[in-house]
């Protein structure tokens, strides 16, 4: 196998620390952040992934349509 696609992952128990590093934790706990695709509030239970779009951090929830929408995100954020 010549090359590999790296997928970054955060294990459940490391999630709080990584979200704090990204300054997202308090907003998520306070339900101030919405899913980039369905606009529903993101919680610690339904968060699936964090990504960058147009230079900003975006969060998506674990609903199936949102997971499916992820493929259409704009890459190369900057």
């Amino acid at each position: 196998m010549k090359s590999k696609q790296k997928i970054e992952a955060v294990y459940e128990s490391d999630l709080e620390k990584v979200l704090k590093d990204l300054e997202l934790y308090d907003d998520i706990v306070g339900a101030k952040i919405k899913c980039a695709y369905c606009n529903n509030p993101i919680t610690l239970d339904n968060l699936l992934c964090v990504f960058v779009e147009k230079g900003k951090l975006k969060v998506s929830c674990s609903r199936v349509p949102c997971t499916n929408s992820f493929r259409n995100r704009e890459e190369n954020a900057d």
Partner: protein
Amino acid sequence: MQIDAIFSLTKYLPHIDTGWLVAALLFIYIFIKDLPEFAKLKASVLLPLSQWLKFKGLQKSAIKNDIEGTVNVAVKILENEMPEGTIKGIEIEYINDTKKEAFIREGRVFVRIKPAEKEEENFVVVTKLYLDCVLLPNSKKLLTEEQSKAVTYFTAYRIMGKRARYLNKLHDDYYKPDTDSKPKIKEYFEAIECVDKRGLFYSTMLRSIEECAGNVRFTSGSLNTEFDNILQHLQRFVEELKKKTKDGNDNLWNYKSSGVSFALLLVADPLKARIGSYKAYLNRLKKNFSRVSYVFVVFSKKEWLPFGKEVADALDSYIGATFIGEVESSHDYRGKNGGIVRLYERKIDPSNQQATE
């Protein structure tokens, strides 16, 4: 006799230097540690163990080995079927701290991994995310959502193979709701499945679409039409093969459009071929294969080599096609396991359809 030999060997065991034994084991480990088969084997032990012991490190390792092992074992097979660079393996990297500025600057993405009890969910989410990143590098942005999703679902099914729990999760949570709301995905999926069962999806269809997508003349609309046309063409070709019509429909042996043109030549059993017997195939070549830029020679067996050289020389001298590569396929054109597809290219401009004969 064999038992005696084994017993006679065991008497030397206590004399083997422990250092050499450790070195030998270490050497074997270094050799196999990066093999996806080893990761898959490790996962089969670690997953149940981690669900029982619930140690964080064990769970993370089990999940990583499970996904990387299963996906990369499948990719090793798919790599042989696809055009070079169309698919690559997966590597999961856990992060447990990061810097916001660097994360944004590098345009990174992370996915959440749940404990091993929810491994079906982890596996399906990560595999879909990975396929969204790697599949169809040239054509993804030009195909319709239904077309690219059908290719992604089909490849995900191929990767999951016989892992029933993962397949069920993918089907129930993603494929079914998606196809219920967009039935076209199911239509494409079934057509792809039909073509792949005769070894023509990745080797012929996907290669042609990626080739078109690399052509600047192709816009999104024209590539969508090309995708539909090639898939329908190959599906009709396979249907004719299933009917076992002696010559089939002559129009189906080649495909021509303004963007890509190719012909198919099926070689039943090269082992039966004798010197000079390639001439039988040339009659079909002359009849159907003028004005195409690619010829896919589809062999039914892997033991084609002696005859393959003869056909290659004939293709070169009769229609000016040169050998550019060879791929393996999951099935041969008769639907049996394992096939070979050789690709020959002719230097013609498909837009004016002028052959250099």
